[in-house]
């Protein structure tokens, strides 16, 4: 294991648990942020350390950096990409079809707005709209990763705009014991250390730990001490990472519905699968793996260095939705 202050080209990301969708999206966000910050000099790639349990991803860089420098570069990249997270004050992902079309066309019109086009195309398509009397003005059917529709005053776009721009969470603790963390520290915690989820910041319900079952809690569920926090750095990276999962319209059951890289809808509902690959892969290569038609077929991607594939299912818990911890589906 590399010491935190020792420059290295290989960094084991001990914070990113393999069966956690938020962690996987954070990994995508990390690669995206590093590419945005200094793609040519860092050439970031990721692989999974299959041989050394517990399973964790490893970041590979072209030149040695310390963990702090990695986090600083990622923070700078996130800040740069967060500029695209501007939704004109709209709180939910429910654009009427014409508005969605205009937004997408405007984003695609110029290479300068490539980051924004990436983000918007990961969120919606004007071809996939919800059932409505008038399809011409129907709201878009959002990405299946959107779990917030205003229930419990949780708004997806509102959070997608604010979380990447919130560089640091509020200081942890009270009074003199309050500890403030920097933007880089916050990301370093998410990447290199086990998560403590101490932050009272917004999240996207991608972390399976947010699936809180009162009956399974060790103490009084109404006690604020048991109120779960978030890992802000992970949510920041994941908010950036979602742009890597491009959405495309797909005909399904007589309707046009949204489909994303790695996603599939079947009789059991929506699930998201990601591979555990052995060799360092760029973000583009990972996207290609996620889009591979054999992704869900056991051992079909073995020749591409995929050890196994993890699948997280979207579930409803009361009025909220969550993702389960991912499990390897062998057959």
């Amino acid at each position, binding site marked *: 294991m590399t010491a935190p202050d020792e420059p290295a080209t290989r960094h084991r990301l001990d914070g990113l*648990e393999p069966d956690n969708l938020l962690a996987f999206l954070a990994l995508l966000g990390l690669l995206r942020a590093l590419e945005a910050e200094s793609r040519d000099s860092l050439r970031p790639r990721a692989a999974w350390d299959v041989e050394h349990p517990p399973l964790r991803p490893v970041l590979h860089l072209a030149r040695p950096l310390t963990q702090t420098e990695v986090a600083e570069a990622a923070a700078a990249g996130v800040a740069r990409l967060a500029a695209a997270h501007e939704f004109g004050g709209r709180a939910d992902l429910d654009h009427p079809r014409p508005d969605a079309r205009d937004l997408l066309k405007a984003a695609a019109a110029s290479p300068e707005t490539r980051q924004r086009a990436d983000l918007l195309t990961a969120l919606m398509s004007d071809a996939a709209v919800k059932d409505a009397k008038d399809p011409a003005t129907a709201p878009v059917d959002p990405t299946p990763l959107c779990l917030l529709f205003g229930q419990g005053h949780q708004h997806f776009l509102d959070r997608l705009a604010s979380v990447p721009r919130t560089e640091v969470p509020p200081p942890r603790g009270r009074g003199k014991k309050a500890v403030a963390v920097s933007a880089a520290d916050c990301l370093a915690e998410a990447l290199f250390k086990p998560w403590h989820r101490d932050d009272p910041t917004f999240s996207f319900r991608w972390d399976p730990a947010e699936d809180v079952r009162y009956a399974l809690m060790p103490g009084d569920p109404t006690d604020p001490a048991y109120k779960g926090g978030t890992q802000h750095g992970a949510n920041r990276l994941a908010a950036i990472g979602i742009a890597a999962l491009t959405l495309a319209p797909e005909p399904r059951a007589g309707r046009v519905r949204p489909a994303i890289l790695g996603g599939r809808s079947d*009789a059991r509902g929506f699930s998201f699968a990601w591979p555990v690959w052995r060799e360092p892969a760029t973000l583009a290569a990972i996207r290609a793996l996620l889009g591979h038609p054999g992704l869900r077929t056991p051992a079909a991607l073995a020749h591409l260095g995929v050890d196994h594939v993890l699948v997280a299912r979207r579930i409803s818990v009361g009025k909220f939705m969550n993702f389960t911890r991912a499990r390897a589906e062998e057959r």
Partner: protein
Amino acid sequence: MTLVLEIEFLAGVAFAAVGPDSDRPDWPPQPDRIFSALVAAWAARGQSAREADALRWLETRPEQRIVASGALARTAPVSFVPPNDPGTGRIGNRSVLPDFRARQPRRFPAARPDDPTLRLIWTDADPDDATLAALDALAADTAYVGHSTSLTRCRFRREVEPEVLAAARPAQRRIYDGRLAELTAAFAAGRRPAPGARVPPAAEAAAMVRHGVFDSRWLLLDHVHGTMPDVRAAAIVAKTIRDALLNGYSGAGKRIPEIVSGHAPDGTPTRAPHLAIVPLAFVGAPYADGRVLGFALVPPRGSGLLNDPGFLAALRSKAELIEERGRRILTICTPKGTANGHAFRIELSPTLKADRRSLDPAPYLGPAHTFATVTPIVLDRHLKEKGAARQNEIIAQIIIACRNAGLPEPATITPDKGAPFAAVFPDKHSAIEGAVSAWPSGPAPAWTRWRLPKSLASRPLIHAVIHFAEKVEGPVLLGAGRFFGLGLCRAIEPERAP
């Protein structure tokens, strides 16, 4: 040297969930769960350094294998239970009283193993006496594995019987160097520990399983309304379902494929495997009464029929979505003019996963060495022999039926004295509890006989137990009535991979 941890589930039930979102029990418990139980015992006993060293020694031992029997997954309906420790700070807080405590939903997935004793084996582990004593002390205090209601008796042993060792299979998850530190750190931080390291499935084990021509993925037809005819009329109902499907193709404007109709384009019976429709009855349990709870469409293996757009269109055209009931309903009824006692009208709902246990295809799939018929086999030919020779003639026909269904031939048993014989045991009665005999007893009325479609009406019926030399993955459907649910077999030695 070999080290064995023997765990006996004292109540014969293992409560352990795959996850909070799942109603599936985690059986057999994997080494990481068992190791966590040992670590919990270590903490409860005072975190002795000697015992911690023993656990650290144990976590570095490679190759963990499990010997566990098959298990029956209990249904895990939602229960409403009070959450923990309601606040007591407020005066007059009546929610502390049992009757007024809030209730929250949860499930209690559980497995009922055939053999309550499970063994976790380290094939290359030779602890010194002090380490073994420390481990055994921990094992002695490990009162449960999984949920705290899974009471256990645990002990470590050095020796293991050869036949037990031979039955050991690789675990699905394993512990590793540093697991104890990881668990203690997670506990101190109030975090849920991650599962153990995944062990890739052994490819050779899967390759050893043989299977027949029918697919293990079924479309279930859950009986939701109407009086279901007795299982003895299952072939008639199956034929009516098939006719409805064929009608659905016409209604959807699609050509009826050979794989569904069982007929070649020229109208002759096809020789290729085609769709079978089997009854799913309440059988194989002490109180089983044999009533039919649904049917299943069993396509030929690898045909992809259940995903075929034409098939789905035909099914949809006959099974309309009823909004108020939230499900599709396929209504099956006999033609007008059917005799009073034989007419039926039932509603079936297509689904890939049904709640009722009798609709679970797993008991029919194995893999297993031994299968027994639930519905009798319709023999392909009329019997000509009498007496003892007749029995051999039946066995020969069943062996041919296995061959026709793409299955291996039954095993051969070689007794100490006498000639070898095939491991096929025909009988009037089924070996499965609740299944109906192949023919009624002498004075029984005629209506207690099996009702068969005209093409099979005169054929002899027989139940059988068949033992294969190698593991076979079901479904096993034998005889001339296999496409109408006759000759449907159930595994009677459920052997599931750990």
